[in-house]
């Protein structure tokens, strides 16, 4: 794919300035989303997945702030900094204004589906009314036209009797039905990109399957791109074209989905895959990742994964790896940020393995990360 990507994220950094210190929730991630693609953003809780996806829409709230990097969408600069004459970083001139982002980008170009369908609908208005309102506001249709469109969208996402359900309140819908409504809402404005922030995590497995099928179907029909934020490797395998694996604010591996599963290049990704429950393995055979993720407020030196990494060597404690291309598949690079690959010439092979129980060497006090 040589064409210009729909969305390009370069070296994005989002930090939270708390009393306890600066939390580097997203620390220099880069990835692209091409047209019609579903890109996975995978990682444990606290890896910075949600903050990263909200940063794309400049929806980071105080005390959080995007402090660096560039987000380019369809050639427009959603976020970008440059160095001013006095050496201070300042917003670039061509960066879209807050109004432009709100009116043109959010909802119309990039829509979001949130994790908890129970909480994402306003309980005091009817489902149809809310859907109609979104259509009315973003597409400038009349009330009647928006209503007809809303009913059509409800039918599209597989809600039976849409005319009747239109008048009902969110509490009268089941979780799966609500998630369908949210998908309808996201699709209603015909965005080119939808950020799905763990949209099936709160649903039970059968409903999850239905929703994923629905998204697959709608994605084929509308040719919408998705950024699919999840911690579930099973979902990734099922739906994503390419995957970005995040650990502690950084992307540690980037690859097309089959490549990632069959030729895993980063120990963290491998650990994630091994810790995934599967029908063909008993609980005893599961290999949970040792230790807990350190806090993003004081990340470990060198490779951030080294305290928990089975392959860690002495050099991993000193050298911080940036993702490098370690293989190529389907004209997409397979990037990994692990020193054991030849692309990093830092003397991994000659370095001594790290001793000790990973849990005791994990940095930080073991609390929740910066999400």
């Amino acid at each position, binding site marked *: 794919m040589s064409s210009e990507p729909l969305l390009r994220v370069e070296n994005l950094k989002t930090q939270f300035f708390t009393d306890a210190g600066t939390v580097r929730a997203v620390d220099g991630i880069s990835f692209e989303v091409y047209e019609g693609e579903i890109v996975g953003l995978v990682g444990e809780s606290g890896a910075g997945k949600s903050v990263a996806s*909200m940063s794309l*829409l400049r*929806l980071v709230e*105080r005390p959080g702030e995007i402090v660096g990097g560039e987000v380019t969408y369809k050639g427009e600069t959603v976020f970008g900094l440059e160095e001013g004459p006095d050496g201070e970083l300042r917003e670039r001139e061509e960066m879209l204004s807050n109004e432009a982002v*709100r*009116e*043109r*980008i*959010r*909802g*119309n170009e990039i*829509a*979001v589906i*949130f*994790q*908890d369908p129970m*909480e*994402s*609908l*306003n*309980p*005091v*208005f009817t489902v149809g009314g809310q859907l109609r*309102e*979104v259509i009315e*506001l*973003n597409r400038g249709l009349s009330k009647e036209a928006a209503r007809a469109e809303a009913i059509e969208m409800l039918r599209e996402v597989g809600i039976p009797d849409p005319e009747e359900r239109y008048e009902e*309140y969110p*509490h*009268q819908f089941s979780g799966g039905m609500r998630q369908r409504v*949210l998908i309808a*809402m996201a699709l209603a*404005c015909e965005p080119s990109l939808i950020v799905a922030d763990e949209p099936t995590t709160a649903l039970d497995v059968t409903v999850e399957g239905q929703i994923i099928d629905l998204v697959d179907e709608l994605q084929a029909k509308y040719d919408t791109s998705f950024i699919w934020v999840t911690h579930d490797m099973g979902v990734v395998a099922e739906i994503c074209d390419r995957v970005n694996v995040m650990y502690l604010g950084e992307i540690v591996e980037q690859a097309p989905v089959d490549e990632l599963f069959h030729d895993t290049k980063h120990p963290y990704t491998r650990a994630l895959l091994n810790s995934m429950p599967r029908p063909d393995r008993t609980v005893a055979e599961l290999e949970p990742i040792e230790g807990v993720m350190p806090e993003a407020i004081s990340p470990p030196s060198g490779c951030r994964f080294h305290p928990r990494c089975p392959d860690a060597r002495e050099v991993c404690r000193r050298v911080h790896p940036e993702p490098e291309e370690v293989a190529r598949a389907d004209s997409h690079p397979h990037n990994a940020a692990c020193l054991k690959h030849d692309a990093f010439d830092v003397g991994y092979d000659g370095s001594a393995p790290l001793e000790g129980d990973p849990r005791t060497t994990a940095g930080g006090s073991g609390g929740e990360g910066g999400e």
Partner: protein
Amino acid sequence: MAVGESQLESGTESDEGVEARVGWRYTLARIADDTTARWGLYIVAVVLLVALYAFVDSNLSRLTLGAVSDYTFANAIPIFDHPTRIPDPGEGRANVPPAFHPEGTLEYPLGTDRNGRDYFTRIVYGTQVSVMVGLISTVLGLVGGTIIGAVAGYYGGAIDDVLMRAIETLYSIPPLILVIVFTVFVGGANIWYAVLGVGLAFVPVFARIIRSQVLSVREMDYIEAARAAGVRDRHIILRHVVPNSFAPVLVYATLQIGVTILIVAGLSFLGYGAQPPTPDWGQMLNTSHGYMHSNIWLSIWPGLAIVITIMGFNLFGDGLQDALDPRIDD
């Protein structure tokens, strides 16, 4: 047995799904089940009807030239511009006792005042003043407080600090003093200034309640979702934040109507509110307190009217609070 059945009924999901625990119909049904709340509702309904009657009658009588002894209520409340007619004391008998008194007459059920005006009619017309005063100043406080509280809570930070410190300053002044100073400041004793002043005095209470609600509502996913859909802040506040923060304020407002009526009556009694000859309960108490020894009834009737009205609003408000509280089960 009946209890068991009703429990069974409410515990079963019908084909139409679980019965909604929100909405007007459900709230009203809950109030109807609660005896005290029901009585509150009755009293409020009667008071409102009487006030409506007085309003229509006083404004109609000006057009139809005198329904019943029209000099009595010519000055009810100057909604429409009309020449002030001075009541003519010569027409009625002054200081007639209530009808149940040996000297009383059914023509004047509650007797007449020292000017010979029918006291029953004046009490009825006083309802109009009290209800309007109570409703309007509560709505003023509610609207002002909701806007300030919602903005402060939604934006937080410096905006919150500035607004809430100002509100707290206002809150630290006793309402009666605040309103008296306010009426003097804006131009003197007038019922409308009093209404405005009382509304202002209660902005802080409403602002604080709304703000505390907004602080939790603004963290809800549907707010974030609205923001992600590119909705304007103003729209988010009005459509998403305020409606979801409103229930406790609504209850408080109902209770507040009673308090407001009491305060405005107090102001009128002190001479800062309604002015004679406007038939206002507080003002009537003011006029009659000099005659307590000769005719105690002139003080009892308006006092009773105030007590009943406030009790009605309070009972209703309490019932509404229970009805809107999802934790209290039948």
